[in-house]
């Protein structure tokens, strides 16, 4: 187990190293930041001077070396647009994004787990139809459209929730529901099909034959088995939500990293894009690692051999 853990950690570190290399080269495929940062009536000489000052004129290997040595110390340089250390800017906005992603995830799980269990335990009934409909709708409705519709109904017409911004519980309801819709659909389908599958397993029949009550069979034998699948997908989805809430954060003016990604790319803010990409990737790698560990805790059949 320890050796497995160690090898997973080493793998993750190597993965992050690869991410750094990718991040460095990818931003250099886009436009010239010097021209975008300088005023439009700046002369070619001014632009050249700016490029020189920013180090964009150095040979690529030298730029790469500077980037890597800085990145290993958590220094991604200064944001060209915000004029502050890029990493600090990203970390300042992370809590808002984590809060929104968590709320969306919790909302999705609260609805999806009971719905999926009910649907999966009674295939063909009206409950199952509802369950499948929610699964389909959740995964197919574009969340930005739903967000605008919800603002129009719940904020403008009914006045129940604030239109935008972050502050207090009421402000997170609409963005969390909009953001949670996709994972909600996904989880519902997943739980339903997992329950359907597991309830026909031999050990479930054995449990019933031991005379266990229905709810005990569900909590101890079915749900615990379903949760292995659920945990892996929740981990992936959480990572996805952290990086993928660009539209929702933009629409609700939520002060997180999602909508900053958009700005950073538009402004060709190299250091900021790099720091953002690195932090997002780090979260996903970390979540994957935690997911792997969670398997062991949940399912005693899963063992990582030494």
């Amino acid at each position, binding site marked *: 187990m320890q050796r497995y853990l160690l090898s997973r950690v080493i793998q993750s570190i190597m993965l992050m190293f690869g991410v750094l290399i990718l991040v460095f080269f990818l931003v250099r495929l886009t436009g010239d930041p010097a021209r975008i940062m300088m005023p439009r009536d700046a002369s070619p000489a001014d632009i050249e001077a700016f490029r020189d000052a920013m180090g964009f004129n150095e040979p690529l290997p030298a730029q790469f070396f500077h980037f890597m040595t800085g990145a290993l110390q958590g220094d991604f340089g200064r944001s060209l647009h915000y004029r502050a250390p890029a990493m600090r800017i990203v970390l300042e906005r992370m809590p808002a994004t984590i809060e929104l992603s968590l709320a969306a995830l919790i909302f999705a799980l*609260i609805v999806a787990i009971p719905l999926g269990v009910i649907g999966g335990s009674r295939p063909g009934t009206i409950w199952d139809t509802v369950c499948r409909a929610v699964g389909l709708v959740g995964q197919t409705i574009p969340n930005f459209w739903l967000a605008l519709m919800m603002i129009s109904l719940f904020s403008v017409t009914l006045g129940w929730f604030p239109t935008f911004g972050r502050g207090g519980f009421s402000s997170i309801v609409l963005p969390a529901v909009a953001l949670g819709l996709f994972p909600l659909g996904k989880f519902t389908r997943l739980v339903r099909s997992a329950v359907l599958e597991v309830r026909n397993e031999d050990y479930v029949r054995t449990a019933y034959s031991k005379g266990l009550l229905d709810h005990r069979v569900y909590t101890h034998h079915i749900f615990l088995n379903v949760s292995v699948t659920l945990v892996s997908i929740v981990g992936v989805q959480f990572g996805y939500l952290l990086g993928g809430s660009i539209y929702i954060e933009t629409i609700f003016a939520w002060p997180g990293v999602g909508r900053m990604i958009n700005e950073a790319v538009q402004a060709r803010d190299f250091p900021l894009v790099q720091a953002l990409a690195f932090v997002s990737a780090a979260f996903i790698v970390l979540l994957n690692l935690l997911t792997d560990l969670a398997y062991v805790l949940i399912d005693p059949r899963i063992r990582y051999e030494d």
Partner: protein
Amino acid sequence: MNTLHTKWKGPTLLLALSAVVLLFFACGQAETTEPEIVTLRVAVPTFPNSLDASVAAERNAQNVSWQLFDSLVWANEQNVIEPALAERWDVSEDGREYTFFLREGVEFHNGEPFNADAVVYSWERGIQPHIEWSDRWARAESVERVDEYTVRITTAEPDPLLLGVMAQHWNMVPPLYTQEVGDDGFGAAPVGTGPFQFVEWVREDRVVLERNDSYWREGLPLVDRVVFRPIPESSTRMAAIQTGEIDIVNRLSFEQADALERVNDVDVVTYPIDRVFYIAFNNLTTGIDQPTMDPRVRRAMNYAVDRQAIIDSLFGGRAQLATGLMTSSNLGYDPSVEPFPFDPDRARELLAEAGYPDGFEIGFAAPAGAYTNFEQVAEAVQGYLAEVGIVTELDIIESGRFWDLEAEKQLPPLFGDSWSERSGESLPRLRGALGGWDASFSAWSDPVIDDLLDRISVTIDQDERAALYRELHRYMQDDPPFIYLYVPETFEAVRSNVRDYIPRAAEDYFLMFTYLD
């Protein structure tokens, strides 16, 4: 069977988890409201990158920042320069030396005195290359202290735009505080002499300013507090003005403005902005051997495009036809210059005269996602040109890439773009777009235009300069370096109790005069 248990499990679990969620967010921050304080809430579409006016990168960040500062001079709504921190000034015979007599007894928000040393320090800081608008500060060659309340500002050449640029860009900063906190610290918590003082900046969420009680313009500002909220999505801005969460929103689409006109308690504000849209020709690189080198062809292409129809169908009729590269609020705009009428027959005649009776083929590019409906405008232009036989291959390019190519002068011989200008004069825009090899984004060079621009840039006398602009304006109609398109209007909305909110053509505003009824 025991299915009852399963039936009830869902709702119970739901309740339990909701309780957890509620607990989780109960400890979050709550909105604080102080009823006796009059607060003006303004939405801005982008997030300020800095609150230091010399570093604030674009219009909206500048608007937030400038509520905190003053310059030596101020441009009023008619773009006439008025005294601000300088009570008056003298200009030397040769037009290169300005002596400013400063207002006495003015203090920065932190209590530092405003005097000649502060002016000299602000300029020395402003010309540092890492300052965003250093080129604006560098229009002055030197800034010297004469005595405590007198400074002398010298320019290398007579500079007719100096006062305008100072009004727009020279924010006076307190030397001690600025040195103490450094440039980053200053951008995060700025101190000026302006009508409002800094309270709080929650990144990406809000900037809070409060009334400067000892402001030198007596009786101003009229509200106690201003809160700027960044809302990037225009649909959300529209919703927020309807619910009354915000008092002033800008940058709406004309469809949104139309819809808001039917809403109670909301007033729509519309005005033409100082931005000109055009299709540029190229006579420096890719256009050298093209038919568009002939002025008759360029005139023909202006006649061929029904700009009014484009404005009507894509902008609800709410834009003005462009002539020259000037807008009606610019100095020397000649209203007698008529926009090219839509006349495809005349276009065909001119093409035949120039030796292209059957038209020709030419490359055409436009930026994607940079401006409202501009891709559709380019497609419409393509259609109109095709009707007189000019077949264009339209390439719509991602805007960052497009501007790179524009700066490398590697765009096709026809390309669409726009140019805004906030100094109140069209000189920087004309120089930028027509300055030939010396200008980063120009693809055009014409000795007649160069000569007129050179003369304009050293003529201090307003009337003489206006006459030169008029000459240029007429010349650019006879030998057009662009297909002139339109000057757009912008749409804003305010709650109907907002009074004296006066945005200008450059989309800037000063909230010291604004109040709530």
